[in-house]
Structures are given as structure tokens and as C-alpha cells.
């Protein structure tokens, strides 16, 4: 037991929490923004998969991770806007559009990779791993000063550029939503589209902005998956992180900071499961831990919300009786 705690409270455990959280956090922010505008984008998983593919391929063609990252972001935004065209202009159910994008993310990327690179021949599972070299991966950053602090330096320094960006974007998202005029309009469209449109806010435009931003965030997540976390795209590599993000958004009450903490909780749960399995706990038992955490988290969240809701209700009544 003591032995296990020693393994647990080592720098690499906390380091791995941040690494595991990064792709989930990007997708969570995407979900937060788009939900604020009253849209459920369940296609984040698919967008991440498509972005991951194009990021990895463009990094290879241009021999530059910057080109790859930009391509991933561009593709992410384009796919999201395309979802918007179907959902807003053509009035398709946005959930169905999301399902379609997820299917394209799985089967369509496989098709594209075959057409573009011929890399899938005779393989049960396709990947672009053979094209990915370390030089084209998004670099890790060693932070001066902080890296010299014992323990803290080991935990906080040396992460991928995108990991720092993910946490910075939590703050940026909060500012965007609560401190800017477009953010206010975006929330207004989500709360009550009729009221928003009555004061001259273009509901359609704000919805496109929201879904486009969610595509941008998912694009970052996809780029992290194929250009930093793993070397190259491989089929279905996002493996449910886009869905976990939806749960994280819900658990965080739809707020940037709260959702960040619930994304971190998932990161913690997965890192914890991996550490458990290193001590001989069957990895079959360890791997469902993140999902158990999801269910427990949602349960606590629901109970808490009900309680605080009823408290508020009571306070309201008291105020009224006075």
C-alpha cells in the first residue's frame, strides 16, 4: 500500500494527468461554447478524428508542425460550419448531423487515407504512423525558472505546447463568454433566441460563430491526438474522448472553469487506473474507472443541483412570506 502511494505521488503521475486531460479539455471547451449557444454538438469526436488526420498529413507534406496544426484547425472549423449548414439552414436535427460526422470521422477518414496515401493496404487497422517523424510533431516546452523548482517543475514543465494552450484557452473562453459583446450575444441566443433576435442579434450568425469555435477547439484536440500524443493518425484513435468531453461539460455545469475541473477529474481517473494496473491490479478492472467516475460525477452533480435548487426554492418562499 505504502509502495503504491509512493508510486502515486510521484511527479510523473501528475504530469500524466495533465497530458491525459489535454485532448478531453479541448473537446470540453468546444462543448461548453456550443452549448452556451443552445446547440448540442455531439460530432466533436468525428471532428477530432478528421482534424487529426489532416493535421498529421499536412505536417508530413509541408515538413512542418505549424502547417499541420493550421490544417487541423482549418479542417475542424470547416467541418463544424458544414454541420451548421445542415443543422441551421437545411433544418436537419443537429443530433443526427453529429452522428453523421462521427461516422465520417471513423469510416470516412479511413477512406480518405486510402485515397490519399494508399497506406491501408491489407491492414486490419490503418494508420499514418509511418509518415510521422519527431521533427514534425508539436514540440514540448521546457519552461525556464519553473522547471528548476523541485517536483512542481517536473509536473508543470516539459508538456506539449498544446497542453499549455488548452489550459490558457479555459480562461480565454471565460473572457469571451462573459466579458465581450459577442459572448453576451452568444449566450443570449442560447438562453432565448426570440428575445435575442428581437433586440437585433442575428441568431443564425451567432450559431455559426458558436459551432465554428467548437470546430476550432475540436481541431486543436485532433491535432494534439495525432501530432503530439501519438505519432500520426490511426483509425478511431480519438477513442471516445469527444464523448467524455460532453459528460465533462455537463458535469461542469456548462461553465469553462467547472468543466475544466471535471475534465481534470477524468484525466485523474484514467491516470489512477493506469497506476493501479502497474501494481498488478487487472487492467480490465482499471480501464472502466473513467466511466465509473463519469456516472458517479453525474449522479453527484444531479443530487447537488437538486439540493441547491430546492434550497433556493425555499429561500425564495421565505423571502416571499416576509
Amino acid at each position, binding site marked *: 500500500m505504502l509502495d503504491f502511494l509512493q508510486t502515486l505521488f510521484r511527479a510523473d503521475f501528475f504530469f500524466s494527468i495533465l497530458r491525459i486531460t489535454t485532448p478531453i479539455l479541448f473537446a470540453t471547451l468546444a462543448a461548453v461554447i456550443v452549448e452556451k449557444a443552445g446547440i448540442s454538438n455531439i460530432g466533436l469526436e468525428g471532428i477530432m478524428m478528421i482534424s487529426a488526420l489532416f493535421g498529421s498529413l499536412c505536417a508530413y507534406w509541408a515538413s512542418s508542425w505549424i502547417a499541420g496544426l493550421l490544417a487541423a484547425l482549418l479542417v475542424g472549423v470547416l467541418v463544424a460550419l458544414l454541420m451548421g449548414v445542415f443543422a441551421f439552414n437545411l433544418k436537419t436535427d443537429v443530433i443526427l448531423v453529429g452522428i453523421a460526422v462521427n461516422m465520417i470521422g471513423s469510416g470516412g477518414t479511413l477512406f480518405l487515407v486510402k485515397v490519399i496515401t494508399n497506406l*491501408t493496404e491489407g491492414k486490419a487497422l490503418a494508420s499514418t504512423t509511418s*509518415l510521422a517523424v519527431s521533427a514534425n510533431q508539436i514540440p514540448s516546452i521546457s519552461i525556464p525558472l519553473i522547471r528548476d523548482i523541485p517536483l512542481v517543475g517536473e509536473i508543470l514543465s516539459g508538456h506539449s505546447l498544446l497542453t499549455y494552450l488548452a489550459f490558457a484557452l479555459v480562461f480565454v473562453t471565460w473572457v469571451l463568454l462573459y466579458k465581450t459583446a459577442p459572448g453576451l450575444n452568444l449566450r443570449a441566443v442560447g438562453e432565448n433566441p426570440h428575445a435575442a433576435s428581437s433586440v437585433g442579434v442575428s441568431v443564425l450568425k451567432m450559431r455559426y460563430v458558436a459551432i465554428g469555435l467548437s470546430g476550432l477547439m475540436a481541431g486543436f484536440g485532433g491535432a494534439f491526438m495525432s501530432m503530439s500524443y501519438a505519432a500520426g493518425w490511426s483509425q478511431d484513435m480519438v477513442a471516445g474522448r469527444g464523448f467524455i468531453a460532453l459528460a465533462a461539460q455537463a458535469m461542469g455545469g456548462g461553465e469553462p472553469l467547472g468543466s475544466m475541473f471535471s475534465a481534470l477529474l477524468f484525466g485523474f481517473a484514467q491516470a489512477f487506473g493506469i497506476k493501479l494496473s502497474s501494481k498488478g491490479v487487472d*487492467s480490465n478492472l482499471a480501464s472502466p474507472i473513467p466511466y465509473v467516475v463519469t456516472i458517479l460525477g453525474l449522479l453527484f452533480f444531479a443530487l447537488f443541483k437538486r439540493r441547491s435548487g430546492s434550497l433556493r426554492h425555499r429561500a425564495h418562499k421565505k423571502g416571499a412570506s416576509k
Partner: protein
Amino acid sequence: MKKLSALFLVLAMLLSLAACAGKGGAETPDNSEGTYKVCNLVNGNLGDKSFFDSAESGLAALQADGRIEYTTIEMGGTDEDQPRWLETLYEVSEGGGYDLIVCGTYQMPDYLKEVAEKFPEQKYLIYDDTTYVGDCANVVNVSFKQNDMGYLVGVFAGSMTTDTGVANMNEDAVLGFVGGIDSPVINDFLYGFILGAQSVNPDVKVDTRYTNDYVDTAIAKEYGFSMINDNKCDIIWGVAGNAGNGAAEAALETGKAWFIGVDSDQELTFSADLAAITLTSGLKNIGDSLVWFFDEWDAGRTYWGQEINLGIAEGGVGIVTDKNFATYASADTVAAVESAMASILDGSVVVPSAISDTSGALETLRESVRP
């Protein structure tokens, strides 16, 4: 419009006539010259540096010896090509000009079953698939002994892990195994791996983790990090499809460990960085098993309607011994691998299989060697 439909009718008639002619031409192939006529159907393209190239090289060797004449048809590997696979299977079967039609991989059994039932006289061979063993009396399924392969890889890894003269090898004899799913097929690899490693180093530890899918490269990488950092693994065998490659990335990033590939020679398909830390790969030798199959056929032994499970004795499985293996393996390691191969050949070592094993022996073994 009328003209167009007339044209279609004419075309349809012509096609059906052609089809009749095709069927009429089907005869039992003439084998008087002693060479088999073989059709090799590739559901992809050659140049995969994997199963298809291996099959092709085996057939080319047979043809060079004058034992067969073969034609390879590359059918393409995408979803839209799939209808063509069935079409081509029908075409070559209807033609009746081949003694044997060869195909392979998990994608073919459904098409093959449909066609093989319609042409009971035609013989077929499918490699690396056992979906419909015994359903058609004219089909032979070639499968591979993962446990034999695992044993060789285990002997190699068990011998290398204490060879501190090689960069990144630490003193602790701890190996890693990243498996896809805790299933009989994956555990068959593991069973051989553990026993092989124990045969050269009785105190060896094997850290086994399952990713629980074959696609999540990232989680395999996390398991790889954990094996290397927490348990001092210096060699990890990845048997989890694409996900297994995550373990190779962990080895590369930490700079403290090596990776071993599976099924085909992964040093050839990896990027240069990953290939550099891949010591060897456990191999399924499609080509050699085809040669073995024709040896048997010539000797009058046929296996139509059965599964043939090929191990080291038949050349069905092996281990890559050039490139990094040749560079890093010491004379002792090479000798250990060679003697393991010899002992399996002469029958003094029989590697048990996890498939259809219900005794729980593997589970006990797996837990007993945890670091």
C-alpha cells in the same frame, strides 16, 4: 429513349451470352505437366511490406522452382473495391483455369464462402482467417501458432533484457506486454512469450496490460510509460493492432526501452524514429506456409475443408533476424533463439496454447510473473 433501352437490351443479351460461354468453358484443370496453376487474389495492393508481399514472395519462389504457375490479381483495398473482390472471385472461379485460388485476411471469408459453395470443384486457400473452418469441403484455412511465435519472441526478449551492454537495457529482468483484449488469441501470444522468457531466465518478470481495444494508441502509450517508469521494463512487446504502436512511442519518448513488433516486420513499416527502437518482430510467414502447403500437396497430403495451424515446424511463424536484431543481439542471444527453434522443431519443447484452455493455467502464470 427507346433507342437507349434497346441498346441496354442488346448489351444485356450480349453479357448473358458471354456469361454462358464462360460457364461452358469451365473444365477440370489439366495438371498433366505437374505444375499447379494458382491464382493469388490480393484484397489490396502489393507493396504492403506485410501479408500480401509475403504471399507473393512465396508463390514467386514456387514458380522459380517450376512447381507452379501463378497469376496475382490486385483488387484494391477500399470499401468501394469490395464488390470487385466478390466479382473477381466469381470470375476466376467460373474460368475454371486454376487448381487453387489463394486469398487471405479477415476481410475475405464472407465473399469466399459465397463463391466456394457455388463452385464445389474449385479449390481455395485462405490465410490468416478461421471464420468458416469446415463449412466448405473445398476450402482450406491456414492459421498461425501465436504461441510458437510468442515463445521465440520471449526467448529473445528474456535474453536481451539483462544484456546491459546494449543501450537502454537495465539490470532488472522485466519485460512488458501490451495486449489488445484479454482474449484467447491475444493470450496465446502472451503464453508463449512468458514461457519463452522463463526458459532463458527463470526469474524474469512480465508486466501485462490490456488496452481493451485495438485503436486507442494514446492509452497504450500511457501503459508503456507506466511500465517503463514504474516497473523498469526495458523491452515491450505490443500485440494490440495499431494501439500497440503507442507502446513503441512511449519507448521512444522515454529513451529507456525497446519495442518488439508483431505479425509483419514492423521495422519496415515504421517511421525511421520508431524503427530505430524496434528490436525485432514476431512474424507470420504467409509465403513460407504456402510453400509448405504445396510440399504437402505434392506428397499427397491435402487438407480441404480443414484448418491447418502452422507453427515453427512448418515455417508458419518466426522472428525477424536481420536489421536491429543482427545489430544488437549478442552471440548468446542468437544461440538461445536458435536452440529454442531447434527444441520446438525436434519436439523437446511443446508450447501450450491459451486457445481452448480452460484450466486457468495462463492466468496463474501471468499473475505469478508480475513485477
